[in-house]
């Protein structure tokens, strides 16, 4: 075993992990699930929600798995009566200041808080007391913020400041009245927000949601298709969420090799062009100054005839093709092959130079 590896025991099973890894990471690698709310792999370890508390042999108190690094011969227990009692208490406290309106919440079905309440059998009736009654913020085109559903995990704040470095949101208020918001609680605009939706992508509850996808379908009604973004050359992956043959939303793919779930305004919110009414829907043939709708057969026959005619009349060097860096590799290969085998020349170029 090299210096970079350490052996620890999780729930009695010995595993080998990297020095410097947290207990949470080591457990996940070993396939052991530890619940978390404030953790996101894209962010620095935080240790805010304490749901990942575990027992470590020889330590008299529980330790947060997300911030505790592994050490040689460490023995970790991830489930016990004490741990369950603590986790129930935490979820119960969260629900005591939460609207608990899952039936109409956009996040239902993929909400971490809902899942925890289900897992630990907590309904939020244990504690009474004051609840937030804060206005819902949605005076912008993309992001709806319902602070009443916030569990103050700080993930939105951290992704905005650690990853995007936009500094749009931070903690505001004191004590019970502390929650994330923009400076001076001003509406989001381009002067204080990039509208990348990174905060939405990390929010574990329905506090931050995509405005455009609202009401377009429950998570179990949507088909998620993993694909690669069609804008810049970074190559981000994401899921197109499809319902009834329409793309209704873009969501993060946290396992993507390039972007790990991160996206920008164009990737996350720039998808409406797909179903735009302005799309060209049929082949069009020019007659004089106007275009007339045609069938594929008519258009393709005409194209074949015209190019064949031009080649016959002016020689095969008189025609060529432009390809595009917007098209797929396969299409670019085919157009290169097309020019060489059909036009029988090398007059083929792409806008990669432009």
């Amino acid at each position, binding site marked *: 075993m090299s210096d970079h590896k350490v052996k620890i025991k999780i729930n009695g099973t010995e595993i080998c992990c990297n020095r410097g890894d947290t207990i949470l990471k080591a457990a996940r690698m070993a396939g052991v699930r530890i619940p978390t709310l404030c953790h996101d792999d894209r962010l620095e370890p935080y240790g805010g929600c304490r749901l990942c508390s575990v027992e470590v042999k020889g330590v008299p108190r529980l330790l947060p798995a997300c911030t505790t690094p592994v050490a040689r011969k460490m023995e970790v227990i991830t489930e016990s009566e004490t741990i369950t009692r603590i986790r129930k208490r935490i979820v119960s406290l969260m629900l005591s200041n939460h609207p608990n309106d899952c039936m109409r919440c956009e996040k239902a079905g993929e909400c971490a808080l809902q899942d925890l309440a289900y897992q630990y059998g907590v309904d939020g009736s244990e504690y009474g007391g004051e609840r937030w009654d804060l206005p819902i913020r949605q005076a912008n*085109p993309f992001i709806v913020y319902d602070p009443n559903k916030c569990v103050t995990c700080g993930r939105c704040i951290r992704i905005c400041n650690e990853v995007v470095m936009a500094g749009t949101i931070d903690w505001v208020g004191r004590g019970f009245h502390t929650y994330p918001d923009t400076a001076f609680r001003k509406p989001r605009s381009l002067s204080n927000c990039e509208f990348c939706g990174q905060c939405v992508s990390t929010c574990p509850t329905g506090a931050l949601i995509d405005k455009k996808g609202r009401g377009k379908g429950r998570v179990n009604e949507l*088909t998620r298709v993993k694909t690669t973004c069609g804008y*810049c050359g970074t*190559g981000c992956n994401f899921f197109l969420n499809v319902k009834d043959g329409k793309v209704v939303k873009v969501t993060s793919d946290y396992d993507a090799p390039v972007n790990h779930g991160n996206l920008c305004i164009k990737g996350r*919110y*720039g998808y409406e062009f797909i179903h735009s009414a302005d799309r060209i829907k049929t082949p069009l043939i020019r007659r004089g100054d106007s275009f007339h709708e045609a069938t594929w057969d008519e258009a393709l026959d005409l194209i*074949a005839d015209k190019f064949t005619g031009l080649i016959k009349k002016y020689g095969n060097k*008189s025609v060529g093709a432009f390809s*595009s860096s917007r098209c797929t590799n396969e299409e670019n290969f085919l157009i290169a092959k097309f020019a060489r085998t059909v036009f029988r020349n090398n007059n083929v170029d792409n806008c990669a*130079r432009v």
Partner: protein
Amino acid sequence: MAGLATSLGAGAATNSLAQMPDIDMLFLFGSNPTEAHPIVSFYLKKALRNGAKLVVGDPRKTWMARRADVWLNLRPGSNIALLNGMVNVILQEGWENREFIEKRTEGFEELKKKVKEYDLETVEKLTGVSKGNIIEAARLYSHADKAMIVYGLGVTEHQTGTENAMAIANLALVCGHLGRPSTGIMALRGQNNVQGASDLGPLPSSFPGYQAMSNTGAREKFEKAWGVTLSTEIGLKSVEMLEKACEGKFKGIFILGEDPAQTDPNINEVRKALDSLEFLVVQDIFHTETTKHAHVILPGASFAEKDGTFTNGERRVQRVRKAVEPIAGKAEWQVICEIATRMGYPMSYRHPSEIMDEIASLTPIYGGISYARLEKESLQWPCPTKDHPGTTTLYTDLFSRPGGLAKFMALDHKGSGETPDSEYPYVLITGRVREHYNNGSMTRRSPGIMELVPEELLEINAEDAMKLKIKNGDKVSVSSRRGKIKVKVKVTDRSQPGNVFLTFHFPEALSNLLTSEHKDPITGTPEYKSCAVKIEK
């Protein structure tokens, strides 16, 4: 890309994006990743948070420039002078990596002689960058352990674009900053599949995978696979086809998903060329400035409507998957096959995966790539065989030039094709803003994005605005020797005195009516980043 290909062997980024957080020193040149490549900027920001030093070469005071240890605010078009000057400082001070130069490069003496002409006095005069900043940038770059140069279209979209990239390679080679993890040159590609479109051969002088047409072995391989005798004559670049069309010597073009009538420079000439054609077919998802000139318009399928692959700027081949049926019934690959078949060359594939299999069989750098593998893993080319894991860092051992050595190129400062004068006193730089994309045909259809950024804005420095007696929101006319547009003003210190900035996202204010006809003679890339304009109220 031709620049890096000449110096190093391949026209591609040398490292992986995932290596960026570990770099010690970032030299960002002619690139504004926080707007044009936001996700790349997240990697770079992480490097900065980890303590990396930052030098930014950019005439605009971008987000990164504001945070730079050294901001090299060079005059547009003076890239080579600046880079030569930095190399000269490094050689004068003895900061170069002699072992690397001796073992892995050639042409050093010519370079050394050339950069001697670029002493600090001269460079300061040519670039407008202070001597102290040049020395400090050279020191930071040459002294770092893991130094990475990240460059963008601010380097390539000049008439000396190819040479600018070579000058960047010179700097990296002098310091031996290549061939190691987190150490190299990353070129950020503008569009989603620029890399793939270059890789897969719609180029007039090479077959897919950069196999030269002059290579008899390669030609015979393609002839055998495709069952035809291939022309040995080098074809025409797109700009050349358009020029010949103007002269009446070129008759028919099939344009797949491009909009030269909005995005090419000096578009009045482009329009004339398109109108001179006897037959123009344009396939696109929307009506564009170019479709107006077509004889037949074919509907395209968006990326959500077809299967395929894109190759990103770090050579990573990734799947595009069909989420919805093509709106018009057919995807581009099917259309190309049908036209070819109608013209007497039968092409038929049941699925794009079969096209990828053909690519793999003919293109060594993609040789090990298949859809089955891409379901399970993510591969960066070169990936020559089915069991090859792909390549994250290029040139760890040898450069992909004959002999395995990288080549220093001795380069002269030439400047921009058009420089400001008394009649047209301002330099216009064009580029993108974060919210929009290229000709805007996609982003302008997002009502939310249009609510945020509804129109073109001319970015101008407060000093110039005062001189011209204009203020935020005023409408001005911007004109060059080629055209004139009307546009609203945004006063900002992102523009330095003497420089103004426009995007090219809005057909109502076509900035490419203004941009110049000068282009890089090697690649044909237009000089979008510099032309002379005047501004009137």
